[in-house]
Every structure is written in C-alpha cells, then in structure tokens.
C-alpha cells in the first residue's frame, strides 16, 4: 500500500494528475495519426498478427509502425556513421575518393557494427574466393 501511495504523492507533489497524463497520451496518439509512417500499416498488422497481437485500434498499429521506423532509422544512422568513418580513414588519393567512394552504400560490415549495439549479433562472410573482385572495397563491387 505504501508503494501505491508513494507514486501518487510524488505525482501530486510534482503537480501532475492522471487526467493530464491521459490527455497527454491522447494528444500523442492524435499526433500519430497525422504522421504517416513509411512502414505500411498492412505489413505491421501482418507481423503483429503473426505474433499474436490483437487490437482493433489502428492507432496502436501506427504506434508500432512509428517505433519500428525509428529503430530502422537509428540503425541506418549508425551504419552511415560507420560508413563515413571508414571512407575518411582510407588512405587514398583525394581524386579517387571524391569520384567513386562518395557513394554511400549500406554494407554488411557497417550493418553488423551498427546492430551489435542493439543486441543483434550479425556474422557475415568476409569474402567469397570465387571471382576476381574478391577482397575489393565492397562499395566498388557490383552487388
């Protein structure tokens, strides 16, 4: 009972009430409806249904879609940082780097480094010794 009272006391001491929080949530959800996530609703509904999630409310689906998009964007951002860092550190001619390697390509290498911080451990083949372009910079290879 003490534990139940304490959060209420802290909330009252902070000047918040449950009504405000409810409205905050409904405001948040209404702001979601304005935002169209890149990940389509049908896809999110398909995978949620696959995992047992049942909810008729579309706003919750949108919430999950936005959260997923945020996750993908963060991972992509980290991978982009790794890619740029790798390009900066390669000791090459300025001429070559400006022409070709400016092209930012999402590679398995960068992706595995980025995902490692999120708890996804990715292992990929370093190279396949089956064609002459083995061992070359992955951005210049045709994939």
């Amino acid at each position: 009972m003490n534990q139940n009272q304490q959060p209420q006391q802290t909330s009252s001491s902070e000047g918040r009430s449950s009504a405000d929080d409810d409205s905050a949530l409904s405001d948040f959800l209404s702001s979601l409806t304005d935002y169209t996530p890149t990940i389509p609703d049908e896809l999110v509904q398909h995978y949620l249904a696959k995992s047992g999630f049942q909810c008729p409310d579309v706003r919750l689906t949108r919430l999950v879609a936005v959260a997923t998009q945020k996750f993908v964007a963060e991972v992509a951002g980290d991978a982009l940082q790794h890619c740029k860092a790798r390009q900066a550190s390669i000791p090459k001619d300025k001429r070559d780097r400006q022409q070709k390697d400016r092209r930012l390509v999402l590679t398995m290498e960068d992706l595995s480094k980025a995902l490692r911080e999120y708890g996804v451990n990715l292992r990929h083949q370093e190279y396949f010794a089956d064609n002459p372009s083995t061992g070359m910079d992955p951005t210049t290879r045709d994939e």
Partner: protein
Amino acid sequence: MSNGNGKTGKQIEQAGPTCRRKKVSGGDEFAQAIAKIAVAQVCESKGFQGFQQSALETMSDVTARYIMSIGKSANSYANLAGRAECNIFDVIQGLEDMGYAQGFTGASDIDHWLEDSGVVREISQFVNEVEPVMFAHPIPPFPVVKERVLPPSFLQKGEEPPDDHIPAWLPAFPDPETFSQSATVNGRGTEPHATKVENDNSNGDRPLLNSQQQIVSSMFGNTAMNDPAVPKANTVAAESNPFLAAPLKFEDKEVASIAPPAKFFNNTVASDIPILENFVENEPISVLETFAPAIEAIKSTCSDSREDQTKFPVKEKPTVRFKVGTKNKFLARSIGLIPQNEEHNKTLPWFAMEDEKDDRKRRAEKILRESLENPDQLVQL
C-alpha cells in the same frame, strides 16, 4: 552477394531465388518484399545511396523480427493482465522491453508512469522532427483468405446415400468417373485423375493428386490456397507442367520420318568416298536415282511405320555381291535372330546413322527375295 562470374554464376543466380522461395520463406515472400522496400526507403531518407543485397535482406529481416517481438511482448503483458486484446500500455511496455538493450531515459526508474516513459517521449520527438515518407506502392490487405466452398452433401446433391449406415448430411462421394479409369497409365491412377479434373472441373471431386498438392501447399502455409482453388491450381499445374501430363500413346503424336541427309542428293560428295566409288562402278546409276523412290516416299507420307520403309522398291538397287553366310545363317537372319551388322560393315560408313536401319531392312528384304527367286545363287561365306 556475388556468386561468381560466368555461366555457373548465372545458373546459380537463377536457381538460387527459386530454391530460396520454396525452401526457406514458405509463403511470406510478399511481406518480406514489402519490408525490403520500406527499409530501403527509410535508409534512403537517412542518406544511403545504395545497398548491398544481403545487407538489405538482413535489415528487413531484423525489422520484421522487431515488429514480431513487440507484438509478442505486448500480447504477453495483456495476457498477464487477464486480457486477450492489447491496449496502449501493453504496447508501451513492449517498447520498453525492446529499448532496454539500447537504453532510454528513465529506464531505471521503478514505478514510473507509462505515459511518461522515455520511449514515448523519444517517439514523439521522432515524429516531430522527421518528415514522413510515404511508402512507394499501394498495398492490398493481405493475406487474402478465400471463401471455403464445402463439398455438397448427399442432401444438397439430392442423392441417396448408397448404404443405410451413411447419414445424408455427410459430403457426397465423388463421381465414379474421377477414379474409375485406373491401371492404364503405368499403374498409377494419378494421371487420369489429373486429366479428368481438366475435363470436368467439378466442385467436390478431389483426386489423389489433389490431396498430395494440398499437403504440400499446407506445408508452405499458403493461406490463399483453399479447397476450390486447389483443383483449379491442379488443372493449371497439369496443363503447364509437362511432367504431370499423361504420357502419350504410340499413335498420339505424329513423328516425322527421318529424311536422308542432303549429301546423298549431291553427286559430288559421293566421289570422296572410295567405297562408294566401287559401288558406283558396278552399276552406272547415280546415288540420287537410287534413292529417288525413297525420297519420294518420304515426301509423300509422314507415317513412321516400319513396313513402309521396307516397301521401298528394291529392284532399282544394283545387285551387290557380298558374302552373306551359310544357308542356316541366312535363314536365321531372315527370321531376325541374328543381328545383321556383319554384312554392312563395308557399306555403313557412307550412310548416315539414320539410314542404317532403313538400309539394313531394305537389304534384308532384297536378299530374301533374291534367295527365294534364285535359291541356287546363294553365296557362301
């Protein structure tokens, strides 16, 4: 991922996607494809200009798993609270679970309001900052579930059940035509069933082939394939897949008879072959004339029966003296017990492989006729 250059590379690339589709994904390819497009769009909005194929597939797979894990944890929280349907608090708790790996503000606070959670704040921040990017294509709601058409019962068909122990509300037996024809084709009853389905296209009949395909399709978890769809799919499969079609009988397909190669129409080529010269010396008849009746016969008919070939007029062929063998051997040959390879050893090289058998039969007939006409002129080995 690069699979290697050259022909083998191309073959692998062609075989790879189909193998992958059949073995690994099992009916989820549409969702995976859409996920790939969505992930590519998000990454593009972040600044990427290109993607490695494998990296894109991995990222889309991780995204799908992320969604599924949110759904799973949200569902667990709802069940924990004694509900079957999830509400926003379940979802926020699920998001918090996902966020513990990376961390969010207020993660370590116990008893904090869910509305005030760091995850919610971060999401609202994201929504305010980032411009929405529309998904590139319109998507129909999926997976599509077809309506099940049940097979008609005895009552619905108006039939009487054949026996007293069968109640009338049970589904009716299939038509006897669908399974009566059996043991005609290699002892397997499946091909006539497939052809019958093509002809009938009836509703409730389900031949053996159908059930096999049903099992296979259910293994792949294909929700779109249902009872009415399966016979239609089978007809399509039987029509498109030549290996499932009924085997042809002997007279079904017209097989053109083999025309002798062009070199025999040309006298100039004949001179190159020394043996042919000997042949020509015996009788002053050109090769073209010799084979003229054969050519005419080939042009007029396309029948591939053996008798026509042996009926080519043999009289115009020059009589070539060669050792045939003993009387007994000849009789055995005429009956067909001994293969007639030996006598053709010298003459075989100038005939193409297709003509060998024709020639052999012609000569056999000729020898037989000669022996019958002139029994005293038989040559001994």
